[in-house]
């Protein structure tokens, strides 16, 4: 994110009633907010809706923003909470577990074998992320995509620092195991391909 952006000035102008100043904030932060929502929700449409709603909420509650904290942290924490809520609602609607496991993968997604061997790990990472519990996923995203410290994650998600640590540990373990499991699948497929065809 561009640090030269005068967010404090923009926030001040919004508080004085200048709506256009918030438009500049949306323009500036749209990519990080959208990317966070996409990583959490897994589809462009849901990411768009969540990012739009996050900016609406930020605009509505801007008076609650504490100017001693970085604006980006505050804004991303709004998006994070919204995404977690959306995931919970999705859970309440009893979506099929298989669908949750695969929600990040589009119908035209490439074969996992091709993904790994060609170096296109993006889809595989998204799939593995999707398999994580909601809060573990959010902690991992804030840590590795947004370079949040453990204290910042704890502030943003309103959980204790030890909870952040244990969630991070669990998420990393899960990601590693998922990766290995994908590799095993690939090896099995390769093994099957090299077996002589039965006549």
């Amino acid at each position, binding site marked *: 994110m561009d640090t030269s952006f005068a967010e404090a000035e923009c926030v001040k102008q919004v508080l004085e009633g200048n709506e256009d100043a918030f438009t500049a904030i949306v323009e500036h932060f749209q990519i990080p907010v*959208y990317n966070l929502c996409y*990583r959490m929700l897994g589809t462009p449409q849901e990411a768009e809706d969540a990012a739009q709603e996050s900016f*609406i909420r930020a605009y509505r509650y801007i008076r609650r923003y504490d100017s001693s904290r970085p604006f980006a942290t505050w804004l991303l924490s709004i998006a994070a909470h919204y995404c977690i809520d959306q995931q919970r609602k999705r859970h309440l609607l009893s979506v099929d577990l298989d669908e949750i496991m695969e929600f990040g993968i589009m119908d035209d997604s490439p074969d996992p074998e091709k993904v790994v061997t060609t170096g296109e790990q993006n889809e595989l990472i998204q799939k593995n992320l999707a398999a994580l519990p909601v809060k573990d996923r959010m902690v991992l995203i804030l840590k590795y995509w947004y370079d949040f410290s453990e204290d910042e994650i704890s502030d943003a998600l309103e959980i204790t620092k030890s909870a952040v640590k244990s969630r991070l540990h669990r998420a990393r*373990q899960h990601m590693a195991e998922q*990766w*290995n499991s994908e590799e095993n699948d690939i090896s099995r497929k390769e093994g099957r391909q090299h077996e002589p065809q039965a006549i």
Partner: protein
Amino acid sequence: MNHKQYEKWILDDSPLSAEESELLKNHLASCSVCQKLNEGWQKSLQGIHSADQHVPTAGFTARWQVKLQQEQRKRTIVRRRIIVFSSLFFLLLSLIAYILLSGSFASFLANLITLTTQIILFITKGLSELTMLINGVPSIVRWSLGIFMIGVANMFIILLTYIIWKARKNHREQQEAPAYAEE
């Protein structure tokens, strides 16, 4: 050493001392489970670092401005409804207070019924006088007026249908979702 400790060293970010690094290295050489975990996490981390940033389609800010306007309109409507219902509730409370303070609920009820009856009688009388007036008018004028009134009524229905159709069309246009396809 506890196997869990190695797992912690593999998965946590905390920097290791030279001695701890050596211990971990030796352990990884002999333990296939930890070796697999380490490989899996290092590859995942590499994947995370090389993952592309997802970006919204062009026009995100413009779509946000439209959404904000819709939200503000909705909030205005809700605020107006709250004011109307609060006023009605206040009126109801005032009425109850008046009834209680005036002392007699029965007299209030009697006055209310008398007033309603008088209003109904006034309307009935007015209608019968109107009928007498219409009967005094020549039939050709009555028929002409009747046909003219039917025409006006039809025009009114057509106009009302057009207004409703136009309002629904505008509403549908506002509700139409923007294009979401990414990249």
